[in-house]
């Protein structure tokens, strides 16, 4: 997984609440057995009117949002199905950071396993960012070391993240390799608690 430390990119607003993973990547695209290639199907039913025909009204299809890499989303983003295809699609499309007032638990975890940084900010702060990003090219810098989100016009907010996941993201570590360092503890647990 690619480390994420200080990231600057164009931010796009998706001002909708309770966006579920069925919208992020519809079920017909879950049949691939690879982790890659999901980006073209991201938000498929919202992005396209028909195969190959873009829905010009959809937020991410508007010219100023087209090459965004930071997504500003509404509350409870990523609810519903546990499909990791959702963060795979977001990453493959180009998103490295998602900012929202709240995330669904499984989605939040899935993001971090793939080097996407999910940032929780207060509702008011997210609202401010949505307004700034609407109808304009808008750049944000997310600093994972400092746990801050800043723009060039003086916006600054800080966010919380579990120190364990922070370390994993900063270093881009393979979680399984980290866990396998505890092989002895796992084996001892199994000896004491036979199953």
């Amino acid at each position, binding site marked *: 997984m690619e480390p994420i430390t200080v990231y600057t990119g164009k931010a796009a607003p998706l001002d*909708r*609440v*309770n966006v*579920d993973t*069925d*919208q992020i990547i*519809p*079920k*017909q695209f*879950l*049949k*691939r*057995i*690879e*982790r890659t290639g999901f980006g073209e199907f991201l938000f498929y*039913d919202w992005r396209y009117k028909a195969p190959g025909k873009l829905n010009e009204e959809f937020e991410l299809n508007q010219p100023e949002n087209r090459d965004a890499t930071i997504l500003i989303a*509404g*509350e*409870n983003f990523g*609810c*519903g*199905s*546990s*499909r*990791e295809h959702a*963060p795979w699609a977001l990453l493959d499309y180009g998103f490295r950071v998602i900012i929202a007032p*709240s995330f*669904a*638990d*499984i989605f939040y*975890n*899935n993001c971090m*396993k*793939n080097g996407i940084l999910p940032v929780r900010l207060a509702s008011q702060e997210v609202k401010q960012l949505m307004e700034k990003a609407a109808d304009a090219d808008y750049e944000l810098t997310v600093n994972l070391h400092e746990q801050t989100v800043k723009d060039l016009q003086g916006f600054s907010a800080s966010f919380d993240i*579990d*120190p*364990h996941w922070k370390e994993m993201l900063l270093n881009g570590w*393979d*979680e*399984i390799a980290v*866990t*396998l360092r*505890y092989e002895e*503890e*796992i084996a001892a*647990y*199994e000896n004491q*608690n036979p*199953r």
Partner: protein
Amino acid sequence: MAPKTIFEKIWEKHVVVEEENKPALIYIDLHLVHEVTSPQAFEGLRLNNRKVRRPDLTFATMDHNVPTVDRFNIQDLISKKQIDTLKKNCEEFGIPLFDLESPEQGIVHVIGPELGLTQPGKTIVCGDSHTSTHGAFGTLAFGIGTSEVEHVLATQTLWQAKPKTLNVEINGKLSPYVTAKDVILYIIREHGVGFGTGYVVEYTGDVIRSMSMEERMTICNMSIEGGAKAGLISPDEVTFEYLKGRKFAPKGDDFDKAVEEWKKLATDEGAVYDKTIKIDASKIEPQVTWGTNPSMGISVNDAVPHPDDFETETERRAARRALEYMGLEPGTPIQDVEIQHVFIGSCTNSRLSDLRSAAEIVKGRKVAKSVKAVVVPGSQQVKAQAEKEGLDKVFKEAGFEWRDSGCSACLGMNPDIIPEGERCASTSNRNFEGRQGKGARTHLVSPAMAAAAAVTGKFTDIRKLKNEEVVS
């Protein structure tokens, strides 16, 4: 010793590593695997030359892609590849598989309990959000992503931050024909799709105690629709009775010993939760959803709400979008809304008691001419048992199609898809846009309400129908 909740007891017994400022490393007792969320995990193992640590604690089945008609003849080549890939992976890594030939195949959350794999006190995971179903047995069961599937395969553990506890206490008397499905839809409608985020929900109260295991599974199944990490219920005699004699449950003296241990799991009197919600069961009526998430619901005698009824602009906008997608006018009584499809199935409502309750309504009646109605048993065992009881005949005589088991129209990853613009009364768990097919309009209901909609062609108060004389 301080009184504890069942969640705390299970958690403490499963901590392998606990260090400051870190999530805990938790041991997983049972890992259920299906074809959609596992191929990339097995591929990851191969790339890193890793093996499955405990194939004996891992069980697989195929359910999402499975056709419910002519199941061995999978037309969609990509679906077929995913199913074949699971089979190959199970062979390579030595994982027991209930495949399409198996009389024990079915929806992963139906067969786990049915086979007695799901037992009180276990930690259970699966790459599927409805893993919360297994919590009905007093387990800590939750859905995970594919990276976590790979992590569990390789290490039999997961790093988990300790969630908070939420007590949902349901007391009072349920009205006749108000089912477990109505209870959970009502709770989500009242408290929203995010009420459980960050919490493990324990369902308590008289209403839960008087429910069967299958009803409890319906409640726990939809915990994820309220955003909960998991949903669970302290085990009792109903739980033990259900498990007795099941294939993977302990036998003889071992069973009695297990029951003694299981009894100790129940939440202690006086245990403290981080939060409590109280539900008055007598207020619950049969529910129907009108919108595009499970909290957008009303009682069967209500009308479709107006966007202006909602407090915030965000909610009003979401309601307008939902009404547009659903093709509904505000103020329309939901009982005036005609449906074209009925789907009885899914990990929420496809067990024997669900089929019985639908069959009771259907018996002696006919499916309305304008309706295509389908029953998809949750497992091949449910199917066989239902056929033994003659339920298949009741459904078929009424004009229902009687299918093989699978996830079917709950998520449209197989040939069972609801066409664009058409409306389905569905016993499944999600009414998201496009869930049952692009442009399909899903209304979540109980099996009895789905059966009533099938025979009348529109949403009907099951209680009215029950009072009518059957004319046939």
